[in-house]
């Protein structure tokens, strides 16, 4: 069965605006993210990689729905939970794996690891180990865009917990005062590590903070890629046209623990199961099929291909080049300047 190129006229804008090819590409990225993280988790468990990692399993719709609106000359700043943003923005999973394995082929030549992956060529200015660290950096990138009179945007990912950092306040204020092309994407997964938003803030939504900066805000179902993408596309267009920043809050959930050390003492099994039932991937698949934009077989093919790509990526990474341990101080400074 051949699927049509776009959805019927009664479908929501997301399905009309994007071609079936684009939508299937989005699904592919969601799978890549999911399998990437599962693969990384397994590699960690098998002792192949060290350190820590923060999995975004369950949050793939917000990562892909957001970055779909972007082109390579747009920037993103990401977080400690950044694999999804990275793949969404166009990074190659095998080079990400190479980074996890600490290899020269990795995006950061093995110097950065999970928390610092950046793919500058696709406009990803980097994950960040500091909660809130990327917020003012995105504002700075947007300032550069404005100065250079480009119609690009800077998309800034951050969590609900990060919205309690002073950096959030200062960044949103400056973006607003200077009317910069920033799209602030809050992935509100209900917890900053173990602390629920109820215990860390007195408002219900992070979006409730936007009016303090005279900034428009939207709240969306972060597990629905269509919801996310529609809001983000509007915010991005607004920013490109000089309208200034918007805050988009994606309500979502990480089904895995915060990091490897998490014993899940702060939330119930029921809550986790509830959210697992709202997995963004099957949700998207069902809509694609319902709108006649993809067949069940195509969906399976996408998943299988993603799995193969991930397996190949891990293999690539395993066989990568170890950095020379005498090169510790390499790249601390630029060679031209040393």
């Amino acid at each position: 069965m051949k699927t049509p190129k776009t959805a019927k006229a009664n479908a929501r804008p997301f399905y009309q605006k994007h071609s079936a090819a684009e939508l299937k590409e989005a699904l592919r990225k969601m799978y890549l993210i999911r399998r990437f993280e599962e693969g990384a988790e397994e590699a960690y468990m098998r002792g192949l990689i060290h350190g820590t990692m923060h999995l975004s399993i369950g949050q793939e719709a917000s990562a892909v729905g957001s970055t779909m609106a972007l082109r390579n000359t747009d920037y993103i700043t990401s977080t400690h939970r950044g694999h999804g943003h990275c793949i969404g923005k166009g990074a190659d999973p095998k080079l990400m794996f190479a980074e996890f394995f600490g290899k020269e082929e990795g995006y950061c030549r093995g110097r950065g690891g999970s928390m610092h992956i950046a793919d500058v060529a696709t406009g990803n200015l980097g994950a960040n180990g500091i909660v809130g660290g990327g917020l003012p950096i995105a504002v700075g990138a947007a300032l550069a865009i404005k100065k250079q009179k480009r119609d690009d945007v800077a998309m800034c990912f951050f969590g609900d917990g990060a919205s309690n950092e002073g950096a959030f306040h200062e960044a949103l204020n400056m973006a607003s005062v200077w009317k910069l092309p920033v799209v602030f994407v809050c992935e509100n997964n209900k917890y900053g590590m173990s602390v629920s938003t109820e215990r860390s803030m007195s408002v219900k939504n992070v979006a409730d903070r936007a009016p303090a900066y005279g900034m428009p805000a939207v709240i969306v179902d972060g597990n629905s890629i269509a919801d996310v993408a529609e809001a983000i596309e509007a915010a991005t267009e607004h920013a490109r046209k000089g309208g200034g920043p918007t805050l988009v809050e994606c309500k979502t959930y990480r089904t895995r623990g915060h990091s490897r050390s998490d014993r899940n003492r702060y939330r119930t099994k029921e809550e986790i199961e509830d959210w697992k039932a709202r997995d963004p991937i099957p949700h998207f698949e069902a809509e694609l099929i319902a709108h006649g934009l993809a067949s069940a077989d195509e969906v399976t093919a996408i998943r299988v291909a993603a799995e193969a790509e991930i397996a190949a990526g891990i293999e690539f990474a395993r066989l990568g080049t170890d950095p020379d341990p005498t090169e510790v101080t390499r790249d601390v400074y630029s060679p031209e300047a040393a």
Partner: protein
Amino acid sequence: MSRELTYAQAIQEALAQAMEADPNVFLMGEDIGVYGGAFQVTGDLVHRFGEDRVMDAPISELGQAGVAVGAALAGCKPVLEFQFSDFATLAMEQIVNQAAKLRFMLGGKVNVPLVMRFPAGSGTGAAAQHSQSIDAWLAHVPGLKVIQPSTPHDMKGMLLAAIDDPDPVMVFEHKLLYKTKGEVPEEAYRVPIGKAHVARNGKHVTVVATSIMVHKSLEAAETLAAEGIDVEVIDLRTLRPMDTATIIESVKKTSRLACVYEGVKTLGIGAEISARIAESEAFDYLDAPILRLGGAESPIPYNPQLEKAAVPQVPGIIEGLRNLVTGRT
């Protein structure tokens, strides 16, 4: 009747005993409650003392530090845990401009009795923003006291002394030490702040080491002993105020000094140790240049081999000390 605890357990026991003894003591930090702390140091304390005394705070490091200062001014004794010492970079304003200076600026009219705990150091594969050693920064700041105990025993005793102290005390805890074990008495004893500890007697060279480097230096000393090189290892324990007298005395005996520390070599704590000896009466006793083995001039890399190469390791310490004693370079 000896009892062993891990370094993390020793901290937890000190915190518990301090809270039992003084209702003004409370703990604050990120995920120190039901999560038990990122390194499981506070563990189950929240169940014993309640959420009011083991307070999970929003992710607001600057604010938390300021809250600790204010609570200290108003009669409490806060113990603030930073999840990683790296995040203290967000709180330097309150630590350095307020906590450290308030007593002085106000002409001695107030005290700021607070304790801040900083899990620090590399070795966990957490890369450049989660592995720093910023102890030298705080040791540069008058008004602060800075301690860096290396054993469960000293940790418990010095942490209790820190909580007693009327002035702000900064506690650096090496993450790789949390699971190391040692004898720890049950009672609430104190180990004084400001006194170094001669961890090993020797006559050929004095090593002043801090934190995890004490253990690496002791290990190196064992190897060198077999070669007939007798190493004295001083565990500095307190970075500010520094116990210069103990070091001087040792150098007068050994005539050689090496400083071993994890922080970046340039302007790390070894720079100060070296400079104090070079300006002291012990200078005349020195038979060789003062050796510093410190961290590389780079951020901490992620790759495990690079990460190890970025800070002193036992083989490098052995080699450095051997060359220092035998005069090779």
